[in-house]
């Protein structure tokens, strides 16, 4: 269906690599395979001829051959109990040197929903014929992630029922995350650009590449005469999905598009809904309207430059985004980048304040979606405003904080800020959260709109890789802060909030619970914060990160926020991937909505709490 688009990027420079094997080359970070793999992994013992330990230094996990991938995945899920597919992403190990091998790699990060560390495996396929079996029926949460890998890397997932582009538009030329793809306004492969310094030739970027001439089209496509192919395909798949829903009376179904311009979608987001009367029979989210290829920008940037860009993912909780990225890079840099005690406390304080402000916002706007137009939202964001004042005083910016550095934080808390935080978390916020609770929780309208609406069972929540409040409201007490502790969260006494009905009302309640738990953590952190340094070593403007890969994840306010990074030992990341909770939580939206009334779509979406900056990246 989508393969009419020619792939100009996979032609000339790529040598065929029938047996993809990591070789050292100028661009790819793969180092020569080293001998003596220490001990055979569980998978290797079970599948001796299909699984090999990844021998590249700095890499973990196994390499699985593509034809055995489904068996391995089935075994991993059913026998090893790794039931939560956290991240699925691709890496393009590309080299334009004549004799070097290139290959595509799909990396899977899995966790147990009962907690613990990760299991990593990967598949390597040739670049010019990248086909990998789809895992969508084993891990339904792979749905959007496989579509993203197809869209951005051109890896075809065999067996995926709805493999359309997800972030770019249908008819886009090429797959933008491939290393040999160049964007409009392309200047240089890597920052910093020479024409800024030392050359100093100032120009306006639009003057160099005027509007209208910055597009590339697939060969043979005339933009003037093109007919729309994307939407018919979408509606076709919608119909296919609706066919599973059978009813005795043959009624005419209609398709309604909610969005992209719609007050309920919290941004530019579209839901194509197929209705039977008022009942939803199928729903497909359509996204990418805000796509800016954050990951490609991230690969052009140096390591430190990505920090302010992470602010702009989920722009309501920039501190958590900083946290995740800092943790991933510090993991790769090793113990020399471990932040000092005071910095760890500041990080936790900031991350929990972010969670407070995010959940206040989420509750306020969920009530907006329920029809309580803006009074609850304004009560909630008044408190958020006071938290943002603290961020502004500390970091210099209310929302785009850019506060974390590798090995610490950018600057110490200014005088008076800690007192202000103390005042808020001991006096004002507990009172205000109680007030919000009194105001909304028992309200009959909230209850009748929320109870029993958009129910997700625990099994579904895990299978669809839902994370954060969505997962915990379905009765799965999974919180990365507890399940796989990072930073200093293991020192604090707090409960993992959990609710058991999995409906909209519980997704509201869980946020109230988490507000209270965050206050508990904050009260302990403020009490325990030591003096001392806020940065390990100097804060250099250019860092080198040892070659290898790392997956760092934190419990962001919206769910599990992961960063998968690959370094080739140089000043820029070789691969930079964001596991965005808002994006992956949308996978379960269709399950929430089918069988419900169209008015509940708005509420269901509001209860997931998405931010389009993170969905579209």
């Amino acid at each position, binding site marked *: 269906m989508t393969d009419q688009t020619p792939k100009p990027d996979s032609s000339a420079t790529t040598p065929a690599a029938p047996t993809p094997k990591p070789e050292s080359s100028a661009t790819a970070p793969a180092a020569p395979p080293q001998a003596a793999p220490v001990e055979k992994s569980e998978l290797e013992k079970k599948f001796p001829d299909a699984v090999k330990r990844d021998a590249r230094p700095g890499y973990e996990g196994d390499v699985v051959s593509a034809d055995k991938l489904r068996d391995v995945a089935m075994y991993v899920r059913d026998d090893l109990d790794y039931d939560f597919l956290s991240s699925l992403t691709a890496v393009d190990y590309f080299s334009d040197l004549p004799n070097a091998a290139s290959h595509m790699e799909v990396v899977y990060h899995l966790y147990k929903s009962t907690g613990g560390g990760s299991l990593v495996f990967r598949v390597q396929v040739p670049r010019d014929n990248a086909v990998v079996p789809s895992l969508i029926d084993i891990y339904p949460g792979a749905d959007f992630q496989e579509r993203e890998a197809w869209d951005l890397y051109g890896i075809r997932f065999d067996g995926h029922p709805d493999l359309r582009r997800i972030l770019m538009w249908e008819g886009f030329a090429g797959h933008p995350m491939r290393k040999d793809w160049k964007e409009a306004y392309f200047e240089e492969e890597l920052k910093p650009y020479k024409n800024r*310094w030392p050359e100093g030739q100032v120009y306006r970027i639009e003057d160099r590449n005027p509007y209208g001439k910055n597009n590339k089209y697939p060969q043979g496509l005339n933009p003037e005469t093109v007919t729309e192919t994307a939407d018919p395909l979408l509606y076709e798949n919608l119909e296919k999905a609706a066919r599973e829903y059978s009813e005795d009376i043959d009624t005419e179904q209609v398709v309604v598009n909610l969005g992209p311009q719609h007050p309920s979608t919290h941004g530019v987001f579209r839901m194509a809904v197929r209705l039977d009367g008022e009942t939803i029979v199928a729903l497909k989210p359509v996204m990418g309207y805000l796509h800016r290829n954050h990951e490609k920008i991230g690969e052009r940037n140096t390591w430190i430059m990505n920090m302010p860009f992470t602010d702009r993912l989920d722009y309501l909780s920039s501190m958590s985004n900083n946290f995740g990225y800092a943790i991933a890079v510090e993991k790769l840099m090793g113990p020399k980048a471990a932040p000092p005690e005071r910095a760890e406390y500041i990080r936790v304080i900031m991350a929990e304040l972010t969670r407070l402000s995010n959940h206040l916002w989420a509750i306020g706007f969920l009530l907006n979606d329920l029809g309580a137009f803006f009074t609850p939202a304004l009560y909630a964001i008044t408190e958020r405003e006071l938290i943002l004042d603290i961020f502004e005083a500390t970091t210099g910016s209310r929302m785009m904080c850019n506060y974390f550095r590798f090995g610490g934080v950018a600057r110490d808390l200014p005088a008076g800020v800690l007192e202000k935080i103390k005042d808020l978390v001991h006096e*004002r916020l507990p009172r205000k959260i109680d007030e919000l609770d009194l105001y909304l929780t028992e309200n009959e309208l909230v209850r009748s709109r929320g109870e029993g609406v958009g129910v997700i069972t625990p099994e579904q929540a895990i299978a669809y890789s839902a994370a954060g409040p969505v997962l915990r409201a379905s009765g799965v007490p999974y919180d990365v802060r507890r399940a796989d502790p990072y930073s200093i969260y293991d020192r604090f006494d707090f409960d993992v909030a959990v609710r058991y009905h999995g409906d909209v009302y519980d997704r509201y309640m869980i946020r109230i619970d988490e507000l209270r738990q965050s206050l508990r953590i904050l009260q302990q952190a403020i009490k325990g914060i030591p003096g001392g340094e806020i940065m390990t070593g100097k804060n250099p403007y250019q860092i080198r990160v040892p070659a290898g890969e790392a997956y760092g994840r934190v419990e962001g306010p919206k769910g599990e926020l992961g960063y998968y990074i690959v370094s080739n030992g140089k000043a820029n990341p070789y691969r930079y991937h964001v596991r965005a909770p808002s994006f992956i939580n949308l996978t379960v939206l269709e399950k929430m909505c089918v069988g419900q009334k169209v008015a509940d779509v708005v509420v269901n979406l509001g209860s997931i709490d998405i931010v389009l900056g993170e969905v579209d990246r």
Partner: protein
Amino acid sequence: MYGIGVLKGLWVTLVHFFESFADDIRWGGKRYYTAEGIQHRRSSDTKGIFTVQYPEEKLPVPEEFRFIPFLLYDVDENGNAHDRCTSCGICAKVCPPQCIWIVRTEDPTTKRPVPEPVEFYIDVDICMNCGYCAEYCPFDAIKMDHDYELASFDRHAEHIYNKEKLSKPTSYYAGIRPTNYTREEKVRADEEAKKAAGAAARAATPAAAAAAPPAE
């Protein structure tokens, strides 16, 4: 009884409604358009109306607040301005969206590079206010401003700031960021003193060596 929850909620809004008058009466008209009124409304005891009537009222920005960068120059006793910038290019190299352009020059006679930049451009449409340039500048030559009212009528002509538009005296910086300024000046003074001491020691050593009687 059905409806209790709604009534409780209405009670909360009613309390908020009366609070918005109660505080106004208590402050007797001083709650708005005065500095202490704004301060009170942003404090954690605030009740009632929370919003600020921009542009008649403006929130005071904290010292760390950062907006578009500016360049610092020192003014000596004779009134001559000296750029602190040495066009080393660290700000241009660390800038995430790459919005800084620095034009360097060399001395026509000696052919050696002149430290002060001939031109320094920042495209404020691209600048993302991250503050890296200020954070990593080793000479305290570029700092983040507090002025956030940048609207202009023509973005094509006016949004690439040149050196003239970017340069501000050190006294301005001392005004907007007194704590940072004091701290940084102390570090600079210490370093100057150390350098001077080092130079003096170096100057003294050959002299001392010359003065010392030859070992025999």
